[in-house]
């Protein structure tokens, strides 16, 4: 009999258990043995609570029942992220999981919007996105498949990260994953430099063929042993700390994650069924931990002060996520702040790619190179999108002034110049955020292009404005027909409720 391949996962946080669940569900048990090692004395980060629609695709691939999942992890539905105070004091826009308007005559919708309402708009661009409108109204309904208006959005969840990890642990154990409790004390490398085994504090040795480093910020294997290196992006994303705490559940939970700026960063609010997750993200050279805690207390009623958690991080990316026979997944591979709830997505795509490329032997230069190339592109494109949020502002504090004037990465510079001059954001095939997302943030934060599509002059402004206004009225009436979020959550508790098929897209469906 051929010896099974041993895959050892180090870390029992969300990344570790997502990996264990996926590998144990998708790889044949007769050929692969999955072991997960975690140290109970080392805490997990445990704050990954806001997700994007890809999480549904992950659950679907694993065969997880969505309603059971919602009940188990105390999840609520999520249709958008609401940004308040980003760009300028009074700003308030939603980045919804759906398209704003439709392409007409092969021209993106925002050109019509800009032609109709221009700069001094009384109407906001996000008001043409059904998901955003519903989110503001704290409503929820499944997208109606095939319906050009009521079907063009996706949804995600707010979830309790600890419960999610527990849920996936149960799932993984039931699928044959071996869980070993213990802290890795040392790591044995072979002559070639590959990892052979992990030695725990109690002396136990765990051998493996492949090692997934899900050890969080400590990057115990990929960095401490294999010295992959880290590329800091702090010059563009200056926040490096967060203080997180919980408050009571909301009476009418919104279907959005709230992100609101303060003088040295921003704060989040995430409604769960049983509590509300809150946190302040800040730049430590501008704000102390105590000041952040005070800010959190002042902003949110009923914070449990005894259980505040302070977390520090360095935005950036591991130079090589896959080094030798070790693949970093989760916080060990890099950190992009949760402004657009992308961390669990990055965990998910790394797992998917690892399974796709899983090599037959250690001579895996091609797989490694292809994987690292893929991860680099994902990270860099999300990074640029996040930087736009910070950079586009006219706020008046030293933190925000720095962000407004900082030198940008070349890729983002070109992207923004193109938009400024022509009104277009160039699309890409690999990457999370399509032009509609870029436009939502740019317009939401008051960045208007100098020019728009050259064809738009054909139509008189008032004619487009009239059409758009009536389109928007239809959207508003669709929102009126949706259920209150709380009611929709209650419905998810009913047995046998059918939910729509998931797709790996931020906008609910894959075009083309």
């Amino acid at each position: 009999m051929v010896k099974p391949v041993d895959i050892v996962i180090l870390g029992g946080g969300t990344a570790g258990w997502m990996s264990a669940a996926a590998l144990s569900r998708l790889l044949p048990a007769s050929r692969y043995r999955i072991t997960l090692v975690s140290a109970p004395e080392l805490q997990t980060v445990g704050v990954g609570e806001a997700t994007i629609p890809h999480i549904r695709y992950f659950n679907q691939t694993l065969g997880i029942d969505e309603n059971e999942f919602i009940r188990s992890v105390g999840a609520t539905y999520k249709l958008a992220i609401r940004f308040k105070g980003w760009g300028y004091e009074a700003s308030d826009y939603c980045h919804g999981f759906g398209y704003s308007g439709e392409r007409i005559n092969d021209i993106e919708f925002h050109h019509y919007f800009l032609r109709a309402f221009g700069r001094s708009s009384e109407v906001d661009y996000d008001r043409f996105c059904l998901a955003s409108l519903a989110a503001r109204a704290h409503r929820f309904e499944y997208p109606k498949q095939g319906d050009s208006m009521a079907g063009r959005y996706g949804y995600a969840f707010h979830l309790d990260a600890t419960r999610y990890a527990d849920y996936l642990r149960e799932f993984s154990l039931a699928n044959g994953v071996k869980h070993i409790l213990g802290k890795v004390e040392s790591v044995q490398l072979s002559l070639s430099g590959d990892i052979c085994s992990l030695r725990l504090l109690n002396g136990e040795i765990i051998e493996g063929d492949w090692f997934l480093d899900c050890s969080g910020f400590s990057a115990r294997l990929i960095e401490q042993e294999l010295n992959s290196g880290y590329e800091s992006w702090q010059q563009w994303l200056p926040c490096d700390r967060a203080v997180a705490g919980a408050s009571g559940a909301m009476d009418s939970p919104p279907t959005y994650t709230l992100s609101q700026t303060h003088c040295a960063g921003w704060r989040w609010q995430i409604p769960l069924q049983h509590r509300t997750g809150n946190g302040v993200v800040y730049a430590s050279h501008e704000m102390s931990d105590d000041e952040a805690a005070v800010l959190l207390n002042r902003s949110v009623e009923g914070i449990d002060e005894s259980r505040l958690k302070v977390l520090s991080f360095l935005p950036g990316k591991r130079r090589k996520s896959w080094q030798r026979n070790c693949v970093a997944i989760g916080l060990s591979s890099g950190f992009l702040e949760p402004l657009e709830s992308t961390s669990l997505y990055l965990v998910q795509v790394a797992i998917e790619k690892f399974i796709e490329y899983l090599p037959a032997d250690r001579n895996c230069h091609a797989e490694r190179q292809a994987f690292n190339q893929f991860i680099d592109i994902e990270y860099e494109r999300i990074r640029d999108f996040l930087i736009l949020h910070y950079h586009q502002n006219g706020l008046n504090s030293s933190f925000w002034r720095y962000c407004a004037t900082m030198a940008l990465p070349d890729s983002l510079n070109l992207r923004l110049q193109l938009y400024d001059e022509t009104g277009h954001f160039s699309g890409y095939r690999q990457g999370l955020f399509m032009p509609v997302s870029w436009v939502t943030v740019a317009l939401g934060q008051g960045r208007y292009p100098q020019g728009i599509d050259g064809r738009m002059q054909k139509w008189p402004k008032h004619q487009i404005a009239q059409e758009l206004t009536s389109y928007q009225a239809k959207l508003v009436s669709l929102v009126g027909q949706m259920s209150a979020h709380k009611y929709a959550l209650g419905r998810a508790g009913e047995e046998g409720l059918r939910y729509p098929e998931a797709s790996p897209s931020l906008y609910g469906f894959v075009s083309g």
Partner: protein
Amino acid sequence: MNHRVIGVVGQGLMFQIASSWLSRTLSPFGAKIIGFETPVKDGPVVAEWGPGLHDFCAVTGLSLAGLMRECQGNFCWGLRCNWFKRGALLPYGSYGLKSRQKEFEHGMLRMFSRFPERNPDEFSLAGSAACLGRFALPMAQWSGWAHAMRSGVTLEAAQLASLLHTFNQQLGVVYLPVSDDSIPAEAHPQVDFWLHIASVAGGSKSAESIEETLLPESCCGYSELHSQAGKTLKLAHTRRQTLQYGLRQGAQHQSGQGRYFRQFKRFSASWTGNQLRLELPLLTSLTSPFDTLIDWLQKLLELWPAQFASHALAMSYRQYADTYIAEAEDFEQTLFGKQSLQRQLFLRCGRLLQRETGAVSDAQWFALLMGMGDLPQRSSVVLEATDDESLFPVMEEIARRIRCVVSGMPEHREFVSRFCNAGVPLNIHALGNASQGA
């Protein structure tokens, strides 16, 4: 619209195609197209056009049937390579029957590792139909298989160019003859944007006319890359003529008897001020220059500005075109033996790198690598959970259904003749109603 006048500079088929496309897409917005026509040079006699032709027809309102009829067209499932070790066709369409059959190609790989004599073409509608000389468009009973049935055409180039010239005049394109393409922009201040189309033939014109009856039976429904005695010939057939030319990779450029050899000539795009210059060699081994042109025109419209003299626009367009070129070249060079990362990755795990443009499809890459005899060391690990006894009957069933669909298709010739003679007019859209209001 602030740009009322677009100057298209060039000659020949590419020039006419670009003029039609821009006229159809921009005149509804008030633009006027002026065609600055340089003296017509000889070009290849046959135009090979992939699925981009369907987009062209949809935009211009010209009927595929009309073009096929007037230009002696043949349909084309893809390109057949006679030296391939496994399979033969680089198909335009996908493998399997449905567009999103997860891991289908990996099911094929599993079969080939167990039964090396099996042929990828059995699992492709296009490959199977090309083998049997059958053809159909994804209409009527075939409409469910659109993705697997993507196809191209081969048309008589001169005929198509002259037809488009007339069509463009009807659309209102004004032609001005010029002696060469170095037109001083100051002489035409009314032109807001210049598009230069340089279609480089890559060699002197040569083609062999062959009587329809003399065409080998096997030539129905595909073009060919034929390798013989160290030389690689490209063959493309209309109903009346066959185009042959030799391909070589070196810098040397030779004319052969009745054939011409060319070195790889790069596509290129450069944008300065309000002038965009596209260089599109007419003779390519794999990537159709016409598909490239349509793709690049689509990109141009996607970024259509209010002011053309934009540095960022020029850079972004150039970046896109360069990526497209790199992806097309990677494919082409892999065919001629280059060890690309794409090939190494495929050899290891049967996967393909993510690409940024539509220059080459997954199916084409897969067919190419299979054709070169590459069998990956391993296929999908997820499929490993399904044993051969369960997997192979599913694959056989799909192959059987493909055979069944193909056997219901008419002979290629018969389909072409019925299609061309169905009385569909060349210009289906009444002029001037291409675009309604917002």
